[in-house]
């Protein structure tokens, strides 16, 4: 329809937009006015990312007709800074660590600004109430509340770290400024001039054969549509996969779609024509086939086989065995058994996949958020029949990843369109498209049996895990391998057998999600530990301490760590909080006024190996000194919000001996940064951090040797100059007189680190990881006995990080990861065709996370940089079992089928044995 002229005041200045009056205000702001600080996460009012103020009142801009802006005053995040300087509120966000990936930050800031305008001293509860309509998947919300409560009195202080004191300092994230200002560039925030828009046609059925009608006729009859792409248009291999031997996923399904949401075609055209296009009219005919939706159906006799060569639809099996299981159970005084099930879980980052590609001569550049730029580069070269040197991956700011943005998603569609049309091509997934088509956490069916002797020492442990890996392999092999290695938990388990199997179904591909199957297995192990402790009459924390792995003891893979096993330290640190919580719960439950509410306390532990399992997993970091005296850190370890840009820089700065704020950060970009590996497996602080340390040290050594000064010399960079200070003596190096290398540097350190692991033998014995991290968490909650609802009261965490590179970032990981554990325990359940949006698929809100107390434990690792261990995935693992154990403690009811929704808890309470 004819666009309207819509005039209003935007951030204090009059503007007039020409837009569809029925269009969304969010689209007008972003597409027509170029104000991309306002983010779009769901287009349904479910996430609040697009919150703006209309005449001072917060609203979801995705739900407001553009025409209703007429005559109003609208404030977006771009209007919050004061004369180009971040406001006190924005500064407070940075100081508190309230922005991780940053995609929800504009909406949070706007909602907070509206609150503070009315109420200069809000309580924590008032903040939660006012911001409750904005979802965050990274932070667990606590630091956002901190930031808002402290904003009115915030004095602008910031932590600085002088040379040599970078490691251990809670400096603000180095890439935080643009996140708080709303200027960060996420996948959907760039639309190059002349770009075409791409949309993807997807299967509405979990299993269907299909054929196309007249595609040329379709394109010809739709003005503005320039091209349609299908499997027939793939120049290279119509196949990708993160683990090359198992690669099986087509860019476009060929004749048969294996899951609901699978791509069958892509359409490229002019932006307006694409916006108006009704994909339901695309000429494709579906022949619906019976799907197999569960591992049992998929393994049944006569079940259709999803992939040739995978009999019984089995992708892979995993296995670890140690000791003599039969003898172990024979020694057991107590044996606990159980079956546990978990559903598909969606990553639910607030940023749906988005980005653009452009062809530059005979090269293709792909600008999208990603967790794995170098893997993307190889996959795209393969798909497009190009040399890897012809592919450049430029990661944009990633609005949350959590494992799913390790796999490629939209990259082939934009790259093909840009390559063939010789115009930039952009694509933004809808929320539904993102949820339907990208990877999920594996649903699991786990049976476990654990025995302990009369003193509570574990004698035998047997576990079988069936994992629904969906239609394609993705990270299914990793889940199958990691689970048997980790399922014992961080406990000495002399007799052990763990088996896993990943089974294909017509579900969405299950891939990587924070913990690769270990969180599912930990639920079985930690809940059965509670059963055993109760049977043995031993305090549940004490039971865990008795079995806690120690230095010098063999793990279930036979690995013996000489130092760094920190689980005992974590459990001991929790002891005071545990005793207090148990006492308080008992008192609470004896109080008759609390009738109807029962308080419970739960505990669970975790361990997790950092990096690939027994496979090479190198990272390379480059640090260069320019002739102008700048130090440039080529930081290719992608920061998806967790803080690699900051933590790696802190390590590099200390290794080189310069202040961290003096470094210039570059990357990630496959043309500019060496391979920092993928952001997964909690490996960046440890592996890329080790490479950064080696590179910093190598660079320092070169400089010192050049100047012929001792290793005690201080390095001071000045414009064009480098000074080496040793006591009273200063040696100056005129950098402009030195020769530059091929990167333009006068000095350069570039080192690679690869974890020293050893292959696992046929019983899974070996050294799967060089470094593990450990942790334990206590959850205090109350259960409404009549309704089965759970209120989380308090979470106390103790995580052993070896060395805390940046404590505030660590707390952010713990609080955010445990919030995902809360969601897993209590509400999250992805059902294709049913919960493909953020109001049917529930993730925790401000009101669903408890107060958190974090105890950071530092048991130095012998291998990690400055003793550091990984943390990112560990933090999610103990939360769900701690909740289930606390629910049992409160009610006497076990929930073993997740999520523990009120109806299930209610039914379990009713079914308790008297």
């Amino acid at each position, binding site marked *: 329809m004819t666009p309207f002229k819509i005039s209003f005041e935007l951030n204090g200045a009059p503007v007039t937009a020409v837009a569809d009056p029925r269009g969304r205000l969010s689209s007008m702001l972003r597409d027509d006015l170029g104000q991309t600080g306002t983010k779009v996460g769901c287009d349904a009012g479910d996430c609040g990312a697009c919150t703006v103020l209309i005449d001072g009142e917060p609203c979801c801009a995705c739900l407001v007709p553009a025409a209703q802006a007429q005559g109003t005053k609208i404030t977006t995040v771009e209007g919050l800074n004061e004369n180009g300087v971040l406001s006190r509120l924005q500064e407070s966000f940075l100081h508190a660590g309230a922005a991780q990936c940053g995609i929800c930050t504009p909406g949070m800031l706007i909602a907070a600004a509206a609150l503070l305008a009315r109420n200069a001293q809000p309580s924590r509860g008032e903040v939660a109430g006012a911001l409750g309509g904005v979802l965050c998947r990274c932070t667990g919300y606590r630091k956002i509340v901190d930031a808002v409560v402290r904003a009115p009195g915030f004095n602008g202080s910031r932590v600085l770290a002088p040379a040599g004191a970078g490691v251990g300092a809670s400096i603000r994230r180095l890439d935080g400024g643009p996140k708080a200002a709303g200027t960060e560039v996420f996948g959907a925030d760039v639309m190059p001039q002349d770009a075409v828009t791409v949309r993807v046609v997807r299967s509405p059925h979990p299993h269907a054969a299909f054929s196309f009608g007249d595609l040329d006729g379709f394109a010809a009859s739709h003005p503005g549509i320039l091209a349609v792409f299908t499997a027939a248009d793939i120049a290279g291999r119509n196949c990708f996969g993160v683990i090359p031997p198992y690669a099986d996923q087509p860019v476009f399904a060929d004749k048969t779609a294996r899951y609901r949401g699978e791509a069958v075609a892509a359409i490229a055209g002019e932006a307006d024509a694409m916006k108006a296009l009704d994909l339901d009219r695309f000429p494709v005919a579906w022949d619906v086939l019976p799907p197999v939706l569960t591992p049992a159906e998929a393994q049944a006799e006569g079940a259709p086989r999803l992939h040739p060569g995978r009999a019984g639809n089995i992708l892979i099996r995993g296995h670890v065995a140690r000791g003599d299981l039969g003898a172990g159970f024979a020694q057991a005084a107590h044996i606990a058994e159980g079956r546990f099930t978990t559903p598909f879980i969606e990553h639910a980052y607030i940023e749906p996949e988005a980005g653009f590609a452009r062809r530059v001569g005979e090269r293709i550049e792909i600008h999208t958020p990603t967790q794995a730029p170098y893997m993307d580069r190889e996959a795209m070269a393969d798909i497009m029949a190009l040399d890897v040197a012809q592919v450049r991956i430029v990661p944009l700011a990633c609005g949350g990843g959590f494992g799913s943005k390790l796999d490629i998603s939209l990259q082939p569609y934009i790259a093909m369109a840009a390559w063939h049309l010789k115009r930039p091509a952009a694509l933004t997934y809808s929320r539904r498209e993102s949820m339907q088509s990208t990877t999920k956490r594996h649903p699991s069916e786990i049976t476990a049996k654990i025995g302990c002797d009369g003193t509570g020492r574990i004698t035998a442990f047997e576990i079988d895990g069936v994992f629904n890996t969906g239609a394609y392999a993705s990270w299914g092999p990793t889940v199958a391998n990691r689970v048997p290695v980790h399922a014992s938990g961080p406990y000495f388990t002399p007799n052990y057998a763990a088996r896993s199997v990943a089974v294909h179904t017509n579900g969405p591909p299950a891939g990587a999600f924070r913990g690769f199957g270990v969180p599912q297995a930990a639920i079985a192990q930690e809940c059965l530990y509670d059963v055993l402790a109760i049977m043995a009459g031993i305090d549940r924390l004490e039971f865990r301490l008795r079995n806690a792995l120690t230095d010098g003891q063999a793990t279930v893979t036979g690995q013996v760590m000489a130092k760094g096993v920190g689980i005992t330290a974590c459990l001991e640190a929790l002891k005071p909080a545990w005793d207090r919580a148990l006492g308080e719960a008992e008192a609470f439950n004896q109080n008759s006024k609390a009738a109807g509410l029962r308080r419970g306390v739960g505990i669970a532990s975790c361990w997790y190996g950092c990096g690939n399992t027994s496979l090479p997993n190198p990272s390379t970091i480059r640090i260069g000194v320019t002739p102008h005296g700048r130090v440039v850190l080529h930081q290719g370890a992608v920061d998806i919000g967790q803080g690699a840009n900051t933590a790696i820089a802190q390590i590099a700065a200390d290794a080189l001996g310069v202040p961290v704020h003096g470094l210039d950060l570059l990357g990630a970009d496959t043309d500019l940064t060496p391979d920092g590996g993928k952001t997964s497996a909690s490996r960046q602080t440890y592996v890329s951090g080790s490479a950064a340390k080696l590179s910093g040290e190598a660079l320092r050594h070169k400089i010192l040797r050049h100047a012929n000064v001792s290793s005690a010399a201080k390095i001071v960079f000045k414009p064009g100059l480098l000074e080496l200070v040793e006591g009273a003596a200063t040696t100056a190096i005129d950098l402009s007189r030195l020769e530059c290398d091929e990167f333009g540097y006068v000095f350069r350190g570039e080192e690679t680190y690869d974890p020293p692991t050893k292959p696992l033998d046929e019983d899974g014995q070996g050294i799967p990881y060089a470094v593990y991290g450990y942790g334990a968490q206590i959850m205090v909650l109350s259960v409404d006995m009549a309704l089965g609802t759970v209120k989380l009261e308090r979470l106390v965490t103790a995580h052993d990080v070896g060395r805390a590179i940046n404590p505030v970032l660590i707390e952010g990981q713990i609080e955010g990861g445990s919030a995902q554990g809360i969601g897993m325990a209590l509400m999250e359940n992805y059902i294709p065709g049913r919960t493909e949006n953020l109001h049917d698929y529930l993730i925790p809100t*401000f009101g669903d996370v408890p107060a958190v107390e974090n105890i950071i434990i530092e048991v130095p690792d012998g291998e990690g940089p400055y003793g550091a261990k990984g943390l990112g995935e560990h933090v999610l693992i103990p939360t769900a079992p701690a909740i289930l154990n606390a629910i049992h403690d409160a009610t006497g009811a076990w929930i073993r089928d997740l999520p523990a929704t009120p109806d299930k808890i209610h039914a379990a309470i009713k079914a308790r044995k008297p």
Partner: protein
Amino acid sequence: MYERPTTLDAALSLLAEDRWTVLAGGTDFYPALGERAPTAPVLDLSALESLRGIRREEGCWRIGALTTWSDAIAADLPPAFHALKQAAREVGSVQIQNRATVAGNICNASPAADGVPPLLVLDAAVEAASSRGRRQIPLADFILGNRVTALRPDEIVTGITVPAASAQGRSNFVKLGSRRYLVISIAMVAARIETGADNKVSCAQVSVGACSEVALRLPELEKTLIGKHLDETLAQAVEPAHFDRLSPLDDVRASAAYRREAAAELARRAIAGCLA
């Protein structure tokens, strides 16, 4: 096509001429679009300022069709409206409450509409207008089914009226969901109780939402409550049989059996909440 009339007459004459998708707050319109661009003609009522606000009129209270949930929260209303205000705070988020209208919630006719149970216990009626005239439809007759109302294509809702005689006593609302904010109800109950001089219940109204295609009043329970003392024991009068008329669904949010039991527990709490 898009029109945003500034007078009711102009809106009604547009409706008389063409078929329109009517929009006020937009909070149901846009989610329903999904990934499609809007193509239907839109009649945007948001400029009909005279329809905004809650007013006491001769014999009734009138909630104008453009009254937002935030307006309802801020309005000075008698205790009988307490349930409506409680529900208002549970509709979506502050962002939604600032735009979404009470009338729109009724017109959208979701089985889980938070606004319906509190209005049912107020004997609310819907006022519909067209160029042919106006009519009043009791709320219970207005919502015919899941997303189906008695509104005719040329009509719009201009307001919701509550008889002054029903705006008496105290009301309370209890919502049950799987998380704290931004949540669709598993079940919800509104109750309104009037008492006589002896503190005996003279009028009781209880309604349940999200447990049947259309939210329902519970006359059997209401009858049981009449004549009993309004005190801590009143909620004990709630019995499972009072909920026989519900037809809850088994779905991803909860099982049917749970909904039925939860409704009874919520009713006890809603009734107890009327003590004050």
